């Protein structure tokens, strides 16, 4: 009932919790019950919320973790039991009130601290303060009734002076301790960062360098490897995380360019101004732009192409330009359907436009414009 000990014990012994509680109360009259209850409370494992046995609210809170803590707590319990026994022997009735006050105060404080609830809840704070006041009142009353208040005050003052002195004397040591901890922490962060960079370089750059050495006889393979590694490293170093992780137009363009470059002998320098999340229309625009790049790679004969994309509130536009041999758009045979279907058709279905400017010998530029009002 108090902190789930009875329920826990009952669950362990497969008894009705009521029986266990009655047993505890009976034992408490002989004082053993209280001590047993306290010990069980400190050492009992915390029930997992949701397990069938946990019919009583499971105790969630601080548990002594290490063997040393357990031993310390047992010693504490024995000491307090002895003290209590002596007090009971004295049997003076005017001690009962301060002891009860003290016990209630301690109980409240422990209950408050021994939970997962954040301490800054207003109710928790007041209860904590009330408990502390109760306990302090109990101590003062206890000392007053036993006539040791003056002695205790002297002792308290002396302790305070000694403690202050010790703190002042050892201040440089504390300071140095804190400083060295900060330095240690910084060094650890640095070395972790270094390890991350090393891991990344190993997975990417060193692997590629090894591949390049193996393919030294094939200039095309070497330049393709170097190019893709350069792009990857550049993205890792400079691109904002949102571009690297994808999900936006700039990331989509970067990935698309990487794909085209690795499949075809074409280097593309993408320049993207502005950004927007990817939706179906944007994805289709990306597919059309990809088709335009592939066309440039296959038919223009140029080794490089420029891709420029600008995102404005009104529209997303893409320009793919190559300086290849170009063609006359009027004379494209009907069986060459790449541009017409994949590029123009796609854009028309989305309410956008595709314009192809080209002339023999002057290269080609494909302009794709997607209005964003329909995309939104």
């Amino acid at each position: 009932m108090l902190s789930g000990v009875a329920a826990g014990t009952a669950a362990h012994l497969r008894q009705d919790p009521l029986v266990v509680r009655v047993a505890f109360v009976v034992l408490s009259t002989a004082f053993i019950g209280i001590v047993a209850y306290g010990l069980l409370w400190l050492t009992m494992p915390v029930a997992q919320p949701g397990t069938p046995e946990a019919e009583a609210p499971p105790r969630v809170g601080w548990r002594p973790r290490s063997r040393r803590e357990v031993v310390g707590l047992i010693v504490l319990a024995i000491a307090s039991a002895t003290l209590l026994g002596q007090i009971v022997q004295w049997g003076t009735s005017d001690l009962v009130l301060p002891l009860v006050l003290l016990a209630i105060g301690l109980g409240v404080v422990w209950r408050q601290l021994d939970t997962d609830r954040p301490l800054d809840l207003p109710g928790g704070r007041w209860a904590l303060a009330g408990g502390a006041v109760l306990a302090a009142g109990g101590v003062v009353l206890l000392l007053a009734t036993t006539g040791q208040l003056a002695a205790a005050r002297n002792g308290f003052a002396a302790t305070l002076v000694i403690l202050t002195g010790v703190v002042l004397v050892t201040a440089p040591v504390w300071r140095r301790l804190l400083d060295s901890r900060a330095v240690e922490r910084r060094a650890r962060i640095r070395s972790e960062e270094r390890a991350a960079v090393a891991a990344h370089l190993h997975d990417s750059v060193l692997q590629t360098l090894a591949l390049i050495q193996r393919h030294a006889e094939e200039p095309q393979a070497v330049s393709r490897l170097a190019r893709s590694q350069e792009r990857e490293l550049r993205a890792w170093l400079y691109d904002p995380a949102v571009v690297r992780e994808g999900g936006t137009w700039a990331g989509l363009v970067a990935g698309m360019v990487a794909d085209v470059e690795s499949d075809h002998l074409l280097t593309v320098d993408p320049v993207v101004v502005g950004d927007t999340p990817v939706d179906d229309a944007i994805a289709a625009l990306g597919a059309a732009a990809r088709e335009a790049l592939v066309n440039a790679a296959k038919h223009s004969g140029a080794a490089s192409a420029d891709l420029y994309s600008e995102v404005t509130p009104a529209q997303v536009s893409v320009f793919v330009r190559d300086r290849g041999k170009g063609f006359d758009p009027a004379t494209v045979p009907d069986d060459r359907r790449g541009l017409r279907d994949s590029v123009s058709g796609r854009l028309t279905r989305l309410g956008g436009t595709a314009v192809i400017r080209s002339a023999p010998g002057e290269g080609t530029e494909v302009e794709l414009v997607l209005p964003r009002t329909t995309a939104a």
Partner: protein
Amino acid sequence: MTAPRVFVVDDHAMVRAGVRAELGDDVTFVGEGADVASAVDGIRATRPDVVLLDVHMPGGGGRTVLESLRAELPEVKWLALSVSDAAEDVIAVIRAGARGYVTKTISGPDLLDAVRRVADGDVVFSPRLAGFVLDAFAASGPGAPEPEEATDPGLDLLSSREREVMQLLARGYTYREIGSRLFISVKTVESHASNVLRKLQLSNRNELTRWAATNRLL
């Protein structure tokens, strides 16, 4: 056209040799520096037309060289050359005073063209740099002019023509192609590009600062 006098600053000997080989006899090499100190001394002594400047170097990087010499040698033109195309590097070196930015993967003829253009007082925009500019000035579209006190409002906005030029540069057009596309002369395209570069260097508008902050620069 006389061959421009070029000074190369890069901590990698292989890159310096490669640049020399690619530019060949079309430019005059007056020296090279492998670190900040030797670069500063060498540039001071030789007074080149164009300095090809590596952005990442031990001892402070190309930006340090640029900042320590720019006021002293205003006639020297700076062209940043780097493997990095991170926004912070590009914008930082442009704002420090470079007239252009090209990556080390640029082809020999393109590099020569860029050096000549910078030597003639023009600016060099790679498609990526144009994209960064559009990104940085993105919030200042025609519909969203933002009145701001204490600064020249012209510095904080791209005109629609400048925006067009930047977009075409980002699409991979050359100045000549942009001129014929927009029916303006190449000189006009160049002056638009110079204006944009000036705005990028001098503007302290809110968006640029914020954009720079999100990209961890300045």
